C-alpha cells in the first residue's frame, strides 16, 4: 500500500500515529530500561594486587546516579564463590565513582562483581550486578621464595616419609591488563555471600579492602606446586611404593620347590591347528 493511500484511510492514520509513538517513546524508553546500574573495571598485577573501579551509570540527573550502598565482590574460581572486597556509594562528591585495591594471592585470573543494594536516588530499584574479569600479565617473572612451608606426613606400617613443599611468590610488576566490562548487564542478582548488613560509610574517601589468599595444599594435592616439586613428590611416592612392596615381599614365604616337566595326558587336541 502506498503512503498516500495509507494517510487517506482512517485505519491507516491510526497505524501511522502508533508507529510515530513507538518511534518517539522507544528511543526514550530503551536507555531508561537498560540503565540504572553500576559499572566496574578491574585489573590484576603480577604481585597479586587487584584494583577495581566502580562507576555509576551515565544517568540524566545526579539523583539517578546516586546510590548509597554499592558493594564489590571478587571471585577466584570463576564465580562459584564470592568474597566482598569493597563497599562504597555513588554521589556527586566522589564523582559517582570509587575504587579500591585488594590482594588475591597467587590467583592468575579474577572476576569482580559490583552490585548496588540501595534504591537509586530517583527511586529506581537496584537493577543487577555488573562483572569484570581480570588476568595477571603473562610475562611475570616467578621467583620461588619459600614463604610458607607445608609438611605432609604419610605413615605406613614400615616407613614414614616427609615431603616438604614451598609456596612460590611472584614478583616484578609489568603493566597490568585491564578488561572493560559490557555496558549493560541483564544477569539477575546472585545471592551468594551477600549477607553482610548494609554499611553506613560516608561518601569519601574511597574504600580500600585488603584480602589475602593463601594457597595451602589440601588432602595431599598441591595445586600451585612447580613441576620440579611435583616430579620430586612423584619420585618419592614411587620409592615409597617400592619400599612397601619390598616389605610385603619379605613377609612372603619363599618358594623353594621347582616345577617338573609336564606329564602328558592322552587326549585328542582341539586347538586351532
Amino acid at each position, binding site marked *: 500500500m502506498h503512503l498516500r493511500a495509507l494517510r487517506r484511510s482512517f485505519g491507516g492514520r491510526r497505524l501511522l500515529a502508533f508507529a510515530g509513538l513507538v518511534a518517539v517513546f522507544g528511543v526514550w524508553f530503551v536507555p531508561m530500561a537498560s540503565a540504572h546500574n553500576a559499572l566496574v573495571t578491574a585489573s590484576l598485577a603480577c604481585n597479586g594486587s587487584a584494583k577495581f573501579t566502580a562507576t555509576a551509570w551515565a544517568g540524566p540527573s545526579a539523583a539517578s546516579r546516586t546510590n548509597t550502598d554499592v558493594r564489590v565482590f571478587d571471585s577466584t574460581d570463576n564465580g562459584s564463590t564470592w568474597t566482598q572486597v569493597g563497599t562504597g556509594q555513588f554521589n556527586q562528591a566522589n564523582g559517582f565513582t570509587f575504587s579500591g585495591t585488594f590482594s588475591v594471592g597467587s590467583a592468575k585470573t579474577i572476576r569482580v562483581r559490583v552490585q548496588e543494594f540501595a534504591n537509586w536516588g530517583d527511586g529506581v530499584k537496584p537493577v543487577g550486578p555488573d562483572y569484570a574479569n581480570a588476568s595477571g600479565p603473562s610475562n611475570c617473572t616467578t621467583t620461588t621464595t619459600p614463604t610458607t612451608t607445608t609438611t605432609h606426613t604419610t605413615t605406613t606400617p614400615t616407613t614414614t616419609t616427609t615431603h616438604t613443599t614451598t609456596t612460590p611468590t611472584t614478583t616484578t610488576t609489568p603493566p597490568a591488563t585491564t578488561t572493560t566490562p559490557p555496558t549493560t548487564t541483564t544477569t539477575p542478582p546472585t545471592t551468594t555471600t551477600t549477607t553482610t548488613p548494609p554499611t553506613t560509610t560516608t561518601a569519601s574517601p574511597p574504600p580500600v579492602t585488603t584480602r589475602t589468599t593463601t594457597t595451602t595444599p589440601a588432602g595431599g594435592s598441591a595445586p600451585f606446586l612447580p613441576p620440579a616439586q611435583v616430579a620430586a613428590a612423584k619420585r618419592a611416592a614411587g620409592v615409597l611404593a617400592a619400599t612397601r612392596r619390598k616389605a610385603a615381599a619379605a613377609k612372603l614365604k619363599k618358594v623353594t620347590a621347582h616345577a617338573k616337566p609336564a606329564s602328558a595326558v592322552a587326549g585328542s587336541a582341539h586347538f586351532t*591347528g
Partner: protein
Amino acid sequence: VSAQTHGRVRPGGGVRGLRRPALALAIFVSCAAFGVSSASGATSIAAQATVASVPVFAAPNAKRPFRVFANPSADGSPLVFLVRRRVHGWVQVRLPIRPNGSLGWVRTTSVSLALNAYSVTVSLREHRITVWKSGRAITRAPAAVGRSALPTPTGTFYIAELLRQANPAGSYGPYAFGLSAYSTVLYSFGGGPGQIGIHGTNEPRLLGTSASHGCIRVANAVIARLAMMLPLGTPVVITR
C-alpha cells in the same frame, strides 16, 4: 618372576623400552614382589591346584569368586596357573580363559607354588620359537604361525596342558601344548573353543610361514623335545 610380568619380554630377559638402570630396577622390584631370588630375572612361579575346585576372586578378600575352576580340567590335565603377583595369603594368576590376559586372585591354600626356570618366546614376524632356561636360549626353531586372516594373538600366556596324540603322524604331531591364549577370530574350531596350541605338524614344509589357523606349529622332533622339558605353567610370550 621375571620382568615379563611388568613389560614386554625380549630374549635374554630384557624389557623393551627400558634402559639398563630402569631394567635393573624393574627386575629388582618384580623379584622383590614375588619373593623370587633370580640373578637372571627369568624365573617364573607356577601355581598348581591342590584342591578339586579352585575359586578365583577379582581381588584378595573379595566376597564371592567370579569363577571356579575344576581340577583336573575336563581333559584330565592338572589345573595350573602362572603366578603374576603375590601378597600374603593370595596369588594373582593369569587365567586360561577368554578374554586373553584375564587375571584373578587365588588363595595360596588352594595351590602349591613351584619355581620354573623355563620360558618360551614366539616371534610372529620371524616365525621362530625360542625356549629359554634361566635366561639362556636353549632351543631355537622355525615355527608356522597364524595367517593374516587368522592371526596368532600376542601377549603373555602360559602352557596350561599337554596332550599326547594318539596319532603322532597326524596334523598335531606327537604332542600338543594347550596355551592360555585364545584366537581372536575363531571362537570354535574342530570341536574346541578356539584355543591356541603349540604342537607338531604333518606339513613341515610350511614351517617358517604364516600358514596356521592361529596355532604355533613346530617340527615333530622339536615338540617331542619340548614335551619332555617344559613344565605346565611355563610362560609363553608371543610378540609381533
